[in-house]
C-alpha cells in the first residue's frame, strides 16, 4: 500500500505480478478489443510505418522500393507546388475555420431565440449539412454559375456585378468557403446544444447587474461555450487539412477550358490544396514515395496544430464542474 507510484505502475504493468483475476480480465479485455487491435495493426500502424519507409524511397505502383534517403523531403521543400498547396490549405485553416466557427455560433444564437416556428428554422438551417458532399458541391457550382446562377442573379438585383466564381483565382477559395458555410449544420447543432446548457441564472444575474445583450454574450455565453469552441476548432482544423472532395469536383468545372493541363487545382492552382496535390502525386504522377513524404508532413502538422490549440486553449477555456 505504501509503495511509491512508480513501483505501483510497474506492478500494474508487470504480468508476472498479476492476480488470477487480473489475468482473466486481461485475456477477456483483449478478446473484446481484438477487432480493433487487428484493425489498428493492419490499417493504421502498418500503413504508418510503411509510409514512413516509402517516404525515404523512390516508389511507384508495382515497383520495388529504391532507397534515396532524404531526397523526397529535400525535393518537396524545393517544389513550388508544395508551397502553393500548403499556402492554399493554410488559407482554408486560418481564415476558413474561424469564419465557419463564428458563422455557426451566430446561427446557433439565432436559433436559440424564442420565436414562433423555431423548430422549423432549426430544420431549415440544418438540412444542407446532410446533403451529400458531392451533391452539394455540384449544386453550388450551379448556384455560382456566372450567367444563370442564383447567386449572381441575386447580386444583380442589388446592383452588384458578381465575379466569375469558378474561373477567377481570386474568388475560387471564397466560393469554396461559402459552400462550407452552407453545410455547417453540424457545428451549428453542437453550438446550439452548448447554448442551451448555459445556466439561465447566470444570464439573469448579468441582466440584473445591467449587462446589455452584447455584454451578456461576450462575458457569459461565449466563455460558457468555450470548451465547445475548442472541440469545434480542433475538429474543424483536422477536417480542413484533409479538404479534398469539394475542391476536386470544383476544379473540374473550372478546368473545362484549360485543355491539356492537369484537371485539378484550377483555376491557376488557386484550389490546389494539400490533399489534392498529395493525391495527384500518389495516383496521377505515381510518385508514391514523394506522396508518402507529404502524408507524413501532413500528419505532423495536424499533430502539432492539435497539441498547440489544446495548450493555448487551456488558458482561455472555462470548464464547469
Amino acid at each position: 500500500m505504501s509503495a511509491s507510484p512508480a513501483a505501483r505502475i510497474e506492478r500494474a504493468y508487470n504480468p508476472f505480478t498479476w492476480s488470477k483475476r487480473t489475468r482473466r480480465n486481461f485475456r477477456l479485455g483483449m478478446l473484446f478489443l481484438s477487432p480493433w487491435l487487428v484493425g489498428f495493426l493492419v490499417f493504421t500502424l502498418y500503413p504508418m510505418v510503411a509510409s514512413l519507409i516509402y517516404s525515404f524511397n523512390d516508389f511507384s505502383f508495382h515497383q520495388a522500393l529504391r532507397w534515396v534517403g532524404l531526397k523526397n523531403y529535400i525535393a518537396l521543400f524545393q517544389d513550388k507546388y508544395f508551397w502553393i498547396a500548403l499556402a492554399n490549405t493554410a488559407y482554408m485553416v486560418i481564415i476558413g475555420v474561424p469564419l465557419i466557427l463564428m458563422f455557426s455560433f451566430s446561427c446557433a444564437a439565432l436559433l436559440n431565440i424564442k420565436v414562433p416556428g423555431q423548430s422549423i428554422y432549426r430544420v431549415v438551417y440544418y438540412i444542407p449539412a446532410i446533403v451529400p458532399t458531392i451533391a452539394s458541391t455540384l449544386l453550388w457550382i450551379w448556384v455560382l454559375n456566372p450567367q444563370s446562377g442564383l447567386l449572381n442573379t441575386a447580386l444583380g438585383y442589388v446592383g452588384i456585378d458578381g465575379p466569375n466564381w469558378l474561373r477567377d483565382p481570386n474568388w475560387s477559395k471564397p466560393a469554396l468557403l461559402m459552400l462550407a458555410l452552407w453545410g455547417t449544420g453540424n457545428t451549428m447543432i453542437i453550438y446550439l446544444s452548448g447554448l442551451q446548457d448555459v445556466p439561465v441564472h447566470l444570464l439573469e444575474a448579468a441582466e440584473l447587474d445591467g449587462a446589455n445583450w452584447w455584454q451578456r454574450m461576450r462575458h457569459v455565453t461565449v466563455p460558457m461555450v468555450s470548451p465547445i469552441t475548442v472541440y469545434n476548432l480542433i475538429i474543424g482544423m483536422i477536417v480542413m487539412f484533409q479538404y479534398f472532395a469539394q475542391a476536386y469536383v470544383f476544379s473540374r468545372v473550372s478546368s473545362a477550358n484549360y485543355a491539356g493541363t492537369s484537371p485539378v487545382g484550377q483555376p491557376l492552382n488557386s484550389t490546389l490544396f494539400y490533399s489534392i496535390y498529395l493525391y495527384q502525386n500518389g495516383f496521377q504522377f505515381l510518385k508514391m514515395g514523394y506522396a508518402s513524404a507529404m502524408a507524413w508532413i501532413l500528419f505532423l502538422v495536424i499533430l502539432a496544430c492539435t497539441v498547440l490549440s489544446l495548450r493555448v486553449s487551456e488558458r482561455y477555456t472555462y470548464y464547469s464542474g
Partner: protein
Amino acid sequence: MENSISSTPASRITAERRGRRLHRVKKIILDLLKHCLIIGVGLFFALPLLWMVATSFKADRDVFHIPLRLLPYVNTLVNVNGQQLPLYDVTIDNQTRQLALLKLEASNGDFVDPRDPTQTFPNVRMKFAEPIMRVGFRWQNYVDAMNYNPRSGLGVTIWTYLRNSLVICLFGIIGTVASCAVVAYGFARISFPGRDLLFILVMGTIMLPFQAVMIPQYVFFNDFLHWGNTLLPLIVPTFFANAYDIFLLRQFYRTIPEELCDAARIDGASEFDIFARVVLPLSRPALAVVAITTFLFHWNDFQAPLIYLTSPQNFTMALGLADFQGQRQILWNMLMAASVVFTVPIIIGFFFAQKQFIQGIKLTGIKE
C-alpha cells in the same frame, strides 16, 4: 402600483405611459429585426436546395432562361384530334399565331392550327417558333437521369451507382455496428491493465488523416490482396471498428447501471452473455445512431472510392455523379435530378430519425 400612480401628478403619468409605449415599440422593432435576420439567413440555407429541386424539373431550354425563374416551366400542351401537342407562338409572314407542333424534322416543323385542325403549316423554320410555356414539372428528367448512360457501351446508369452505394452502406453498417459494439464493451466494462492507455491510442487515431495511411493501404489491398477495383477495400476495414463509434458506444454503455450486469453475473452469466443479453438490447438507441452515422459516412465518402474503384461498373453514387459532371456538356437539369435522387433518401431518413441524427452529431459530428 395603483397607489403610486394615483399619488403622482398627471404629467408624470403620461410620461410614464409614453415611456412604456416607447419601450413596446422598441421591442416590436427589435422582434421584427430578429425575425428578418432569422428568415434572411434561412433563405441562404433554403434557396439553393429549392433551386436544386426546381432545376431538376426544368426543360433543357428553360435551364438557362434569363432572367432567372425559380419555378420550372414546361411547354403548354393542346388537344388536337385526341392528340396532345405542344403549343408554339409561330411567326409566319409577320403574323404571330398560336399553333401546335405536329412533327419536327431537323430545323423545320409541321404545325397545325388547334382551332381549325384542317389548316396546317408544313415546313416552318423552327427559329420562327417560340414555345408557349407554363409552370409545370418535367418528371421525365428523372426517368432520363436514372437511365442516362454517360459512358456508352458499358450499360452503366445511376441505378448501377445506387446499387454499389447501397451494398457498401449495408455491409459498412453491419461491420461497424458489430465490431464497435464488441470493442466498446471491452473499453467500458472490463477493467484490465493498459486499458486506459489503449483508449488514448484509439482517440489519437482521430487525428490521423486518411491521406497518411491511404497509399500503403492502397498498395496492401491492390498488390497484396488483389482487391483492386472491387468494393472490398471499402467494406472490409469497417469490420475492424473505428474510433468515433467506439467512443460513442463506450459513453453509452457507461450509463447502463452496473447492478444489472452484476445480477446477471451472480446468476452465472459469462461476460459475453452479459454483453449480448443485457447490454446490447439496452443499447438499441445508441446502435441506431452508429448505423445512421455509418450510412451517412459511406453514402458521402469520395476519396476512398476514388482511389479504389476504377471502372464505372463499380462506381458509387458520389463517384458516378462527379463523373456525370465531368462530361463536356453539363446537363444541369439531369445532374440536379440525379443529385436529388442522391439526397432524398437522407432527408427522408432525417425526418424519421431526427433524434438519432442529432445525437450522432453531438457525439461524433466530426465524421465527415
